[in-house]
């Protein structure tokens, strides 16, 4: 089997850090190369999980929309949310998963604003569930390293 893409990107990052960086004398080139190495490490991390992260976001948002569609009063938002609950990515390509995620995230913003303004029990519970999703989403996307 060929080396995996994330393995190759990780190895390139390590090569820049250990082999190329020590040879550079100009501080600007050093800093730029260090940043490039860091980004390759980030790309390696992202490559391995990209489809899973996006699929999980899509799945969780669709579940939220299915619940919200049962609770919202009739109107444009309920129609939009109900449609979003059935929305699927065109394919498993990252660009298609991103497009689907963005479509659903736009609907989530509209739903979240309405939920926050609705002081009923179901809305408070849905608000909390939305935050559970947002927390889980950030945890899935958390980068292992940081330049800060």
């Amino acid at each position: 089997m060929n080396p995996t893409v994330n393995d190759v990107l990780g190895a390139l990052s390590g090569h820049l850090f250990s082999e190329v960086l020590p040879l550079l004398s100009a501080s600007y080139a050093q800093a730029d190369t260090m940043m490039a190495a860091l980004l390759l490490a980030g790309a390696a991390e992202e490559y391995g999980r990209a489809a899973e992260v996006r699929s999980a976001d899509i799945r969780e948002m669709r579940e939220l929309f299915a619940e919200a569609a049962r609770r919202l009063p009739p109107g444009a938002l309920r129609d939009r949310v109900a449609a979003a609950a059935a929305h699927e990515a065109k394919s498993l390509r990252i660009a298609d998963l991103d497009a689907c995620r963005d479509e659903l995230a736009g609907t989530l913003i509209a739903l979240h604003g309405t939920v926050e303004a609705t002081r009923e029990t179901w809305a408070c519970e849905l608000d909390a569930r939305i935050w559970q999703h947002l927390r889980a989403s950030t945890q899935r996307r958390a980068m292992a390293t940081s330049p800060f």
Partner: protein
Amino acid sequence: MGDLAARLEEYLSARIAGARDIRVVDLARIHGGASRETYRFTAHWSEDDREIERGLILRRDPTSSLIETERALEFAAYRAFHGSGVPVPEPLFFETDPRWLERPFFVMEEISGCQASPMALAAPPYADVRERIGEAKWRILGRIARMDVAGTELARTLEAPAPGECWSRELAKWEKVLDEDELGPQPIVRAAIRRLRREPPSPAARVGVVHGDYRTGNFLYDERGDVRAILDWEMCHLGDPLEDLAWAMTPLWAWPDASKPGKLIARERALALWEAESGLNVDSKAFAWWELFSCVKGIAIWTSSAREFADGKSRAPINVAAAWYATDIHNRVLVDMLAPKVEAAS
């Protein structure tokens, strides 16, 4: 680089009265300034039978940057603060005529023998003087908050908001950046903006100078632990001084340990030093608002850098680092700030 040196020699010859035989040597680009191209160089010239050598810094507008800033603003800030209790390099020349270096630029004094990197604080010799650097950092920020710039060019450049409008003006400004630049919907930061609008802070206790990007990394420190110069004033404006304090303390600059903002001294000590120097009290409720706002402002800036890269205006790696890493951290901080209140209420 040779062409740039020659053009700089031509420019300095025209600007320094009485100078002869100007030579620019050791011209090198410095990393870190995403909003300006920054270069270090040494200028040599003859003047009144004396040989003069001076280390200088060139800050030139890039073809594109993280933040689109008023080019005269940073220079005006350096002029307003030079010679005050807030250390800044001496500003020398400001130029907008494109015939010299194609884009606007300014030249200022180089402060030598210093370090700016936050990472350098982790090891000797700077780790040994970190407390001293930290104390100076927060005291100087207090002095910026206290500074009266009335009558200066800076005051004429900047519009002063009413105390009750500081928050709404800044929030609208950064929300607009998000609206214009985001590559995809961002539910977390939008929830933060709604919270900020629902629960506004009390009016500013004083409308003062806000540096706009005051943080470890934007000042020069030396081996003795002295802070020698505050840099990068391009986002300077008038507003609530709590804005600067909150931005300087945003957890991103100390990630993952927010107990020592900017990786220097304890948060409580920093707040006490700032209060003593500024003469202001930190209203905890208003400060919490500005801390939340700082994350929104941060994400707006990182969103701009993502847009710059995606549109091909700037392919600099720093733009991607901001878009990936800084956005990730600020989103996590926002969730930790916002979610518990909702979870407790449900």
